[in-house]
């Protein structure tokens, strides 16, 4: 965000050294952090980062029959392999996000998550090798801690590198990689198992297959390491580090998160309710209501995923170009309501609503998740994404159980009505977001150009005030002129400090960072969103 500011508004800021610095390798596009090629290399690693996690997540699903027979499991034991992944994450990925923000930082945090992923998958495999089921469950648990927090880290990285540029597309692309991950898994695991079963049998076979599958986790780890290197390098060259320091997220910040963020979280729950649990139950629904063969039912059921793998980057690009995220969110929720209504109240060929649902789902994912980055300052992003993910996990875990009960006793029509109810809640929430946003800055529903102007003007005001502040020396005397003029929060903080007798101006000259910290603490830890990069550069 800060780096980008430098690029976008050179005319407002004095040119910094970095432009001169870039010689040698850094001058080439592939090594120059400001060049798009460098960013797209990072994007590749970012997308592959989640691949291992999504690939390995669905291995039990792809090999359900083999797991049950080779390990001699009951169906309810088999379900543990998923529930021990998802239930702990109702809480854990929130802490994961917070730890990334507060303790480890994004780079180390990502590496740790990827390591957990590898360790978890290996434990899982060893459980197969030694025929100990509890070890497998433990493996899934560790794998889950890594996997969900890795998703948070992935979002964080995307914002860090792409905010204000192709962020929506990047979110779309990550989504599509996730889908590709599970699709590849479903297609690869069965043949892989068949091949391995020529050499091993029973639980050994499962173990060996899992060890082979763990290579994808190693790939994720490699991506995390390389991404850390690239990020470190970009940070050094772009001097982004200074921006990240100074503001530290605390747990108490959560209560100050804007209402819009919580509303976004509600949509995360309410919308995804109507997609994932539906797909989980969809196969039998298509067989029964539309007389589809099991194969055909599987195909139409996976339509949403197939389409989203293709459509999400493209739709993300569209949102990047057009902006107006809230509008797109509303449209996709409306479209999803239409799809579910078609499925519930007509006998129209389900390929039509399912394809439409795939598009709507991709559009929503591309437009919704980047909105978090627009309402939450960067240093709290890990925590924010962690919360959103945790709330979503909780919702999904509960609703999947409820949905099964509804189908069993009330039938699919009631299930569809249930989903429609959730979608309507999502629609109401998105309308409320729209209203709140229109009544405030309108940032969420701006076009990219408007956002750029908004951001630039915001920074311009700040820069000018700072100049004025430095020129006027002490802030203790407030002229009538001051009162008539608009004030930035920086200005007002200084005024506040001067009232309580703190010698602001000297401190500012002594140590920019320190004043920022003390200001931050003394002005009762209000959400500071100040752009500190420009400040420190000025000093």
């Amino acid at each position, binding site marked *: 965000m800060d780096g980008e500011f430098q690029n976008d508004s050179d005319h407002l800021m004095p040119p910094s050294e970095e432009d001169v610095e870039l010689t040698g390798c850094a001058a080439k596009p592939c090594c120059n952090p400001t060049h798009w090629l460098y960013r797209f290399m990072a994007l590749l690693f970012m997308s592959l980062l989640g691949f291992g996690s999504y690939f390995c997540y669905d291995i039990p699903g792809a090999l359900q029959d083999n797991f049950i027979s080779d390990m001699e499991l009951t169906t309810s034991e088999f379900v543990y392999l998923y529930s021990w992944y998802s239930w702990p994450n109702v809480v854990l990925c929130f802490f994961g996000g917070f730890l990334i923000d507060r303790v480890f930082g994004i780079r180390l945090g990502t590496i740790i998550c990827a390591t957990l992923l590898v360790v978890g998958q290996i434990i899982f495999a060893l459980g197969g090798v030694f025929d100990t089921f509890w070890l497998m469950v433990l493996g899934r648990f560790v794998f889950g801690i890594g996997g969900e927090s890795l998703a948070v880290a992935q979002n964080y990285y995307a914002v860090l590198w792409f905010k204000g540029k192709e962020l929506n597309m990047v979110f779309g692309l990550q989504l599509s990689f996730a889908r590709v991950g599970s699709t590849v898994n479903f297609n690869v695991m069965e043949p892989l198992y068949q091949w391995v079963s020529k050499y091993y049998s029973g639980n050994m076979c499962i173990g060996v297959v899992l060890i082979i599958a763990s290579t994808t986790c190693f790939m994720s780890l490699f991506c995390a390491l390389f991404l850390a290197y690239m990020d470190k390098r970009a940070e050094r060259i772009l001097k982004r580090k200074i921006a990240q320091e100074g503001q530290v997220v605390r747990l108490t910040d959560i209560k100050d998160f804007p209402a819009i963020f919580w509303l976004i979280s509600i949509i995360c729950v309410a919308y995804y309710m109507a997609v994932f649990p539906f797909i989980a139950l969809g196969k039998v629904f298509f067989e029964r209501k539309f007389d589809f063969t099991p194969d055909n039912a599987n195909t139409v059921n996976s339509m949403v995923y197939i389409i989203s793998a293709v459509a999400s980057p493209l739709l993300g690009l569209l949102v990047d170009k057009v902006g107006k995220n809230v509008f797109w969110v509303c449209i996709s929720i409306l479209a999803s309501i239409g799809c579910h209504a078609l499925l519930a109240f007509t006998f129209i060929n389900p390929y039509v609503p399912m394809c439409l649902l795939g598009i709507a789902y991709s559009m929503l994912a591309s437009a919704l998740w980047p909105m978090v980055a627009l309402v939450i300052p960067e240093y709290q992003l890990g925590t924010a994404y962690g919360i959103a993910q945790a709330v979503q996990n909780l919702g999904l875990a509960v609703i999947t159980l409820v949905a099964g009960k509804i189908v069993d*006793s009330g*039938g699919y029509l009631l299930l569809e009505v249930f989903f429609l109810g959730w979608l309507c809640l999502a629609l109401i929430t998105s*309308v409320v977001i729209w209203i709140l946003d229109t009544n405030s800055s309108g940032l969420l529903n701006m076009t990219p150009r408007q956002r750029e102007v908004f951001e630039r003007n915001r920074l311009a005001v700040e820069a000018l005030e700072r100049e004025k502040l430095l020129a006027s020396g002490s802030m203790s005397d407030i002229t009538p002129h001051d009162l008539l003029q*608009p004030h930035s929060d920086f200005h007002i903080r200084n005024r506040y400090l001067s009232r309580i007798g703190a010698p602001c101006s000297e401190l500012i000259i002594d140590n920019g960072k320190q004043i920022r910290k003390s200001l931050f603490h003394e002005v009762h830890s209000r959400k500071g969103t100040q752009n500190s990069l420009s400040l420190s550069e000025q000093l």
Partner: protein
Amino acid sequence: MVLLVVYNQAYDDCGWEIGEDVEESGCEDPKICNYCKVVYVKAEGPSDTLHYLWDFTKKPSILVAATPVKSNLSISWDQFKGGNNKSITFSEDPVYSFGIVLDKIWEYNDVNDTALMDWTNTNSSYLRALHMENFNWTLPPFMNESVANVESIDLKVVASSYIPRDSTAVSGSITLGVDLVLDRLNTNSSFTNSRFALEVLLASNDAFNTTATIVSRRSLDDEHSPGVFMLMDLRTPKAESGKGGYLQWRPVAYVAKERDLSNSTETRSYGVKNVTDHTTHLNNTLLYAYYSSNLDNFLVQSTAVSFGLKEDGFYKKTNYTSWTFMMGYGTPPDEDFSLLVIFVISIGLGLPALLTVISGIVMAVRRISQKKDDLYTDYEEEKCHSLSGLLSALHMKNVEAQYFCALMKKDYLSHMWDVEMRVEF
């Protein structure tokens, strides 16, 4: 045990009465009354009267007759017991009448696990008939009678009324529901893979050369039969005009008392076929008592429904199967969505629409009043000067809020995003 639950669904305004025991219909001799297991339900509609007569003396049978209003049924009990002709008469001739007999339960040995009964294969190693008259039906208001057969039979008669969903309904929408429960039925010891089927005989006063038809149609509502989106209608020829009889069922049976999706299994129907030898099949039934020798000129057909699904482990796995069908006069009812569904949908779509409209109006009003005032209003000034007010009112970052106010003061609000401006202080 075979359990038959028969119940009437009627609309309150029709005014119907149940003759709980047959004495109401003039049965005076207790011996006969105890012998006959007959229940009579009469429904008075605005244009016609519907008579439902259930008899479980031998084969369970049900007769439905639509007569002009204010007509009565009379049964000559001595003759009825003797199985003679014309023991049942109406004071006015029915406009239409039809009846069914639950003739027999087939047990077949499904060696190849097809869940498909071969009706024509009469080989005793494949097919066994459990004749309904051999079951000992017990009608709750009557005395228990000794059980002669290996299978004991319970009959529960439940008559219930419920509130009309559609007040314009005519008496034609009265339906009769029959639940058939095969609970721990002894299977033939020589059959390894027993499955069951029910054969139903049907007679109506349509011409003998016409035929009843079985139509399957799709339905959207599976609320009362989770996961089943099909409706089967068996219609007598006159049903097309809305003046005939019908049987309606969902092609689903349940293998446990809880009627949920996981306990459901399929049913199969085998079309209708003509019954040539009326007398043997219908002798000693309600239908013979009413139609008697006229049966030769009337439609008499039979149909069968079998229960079970491939690879479900056969009847012995659960030792339980239950199935429901409806019977009525008029046109087979179309489904309607339950109140819950309508409620959720209307609230769910109504609320966002309402919200959008209201907020649109509020915003439009606000915009108009803003335009009227060249300067910013007091309200906005107040907002600009109170930081905390700003934060809570605008949900903005401090800097943005300040900038927003700056723009408002300079009256750039209307085109603030199109002008790239530098603020001077």
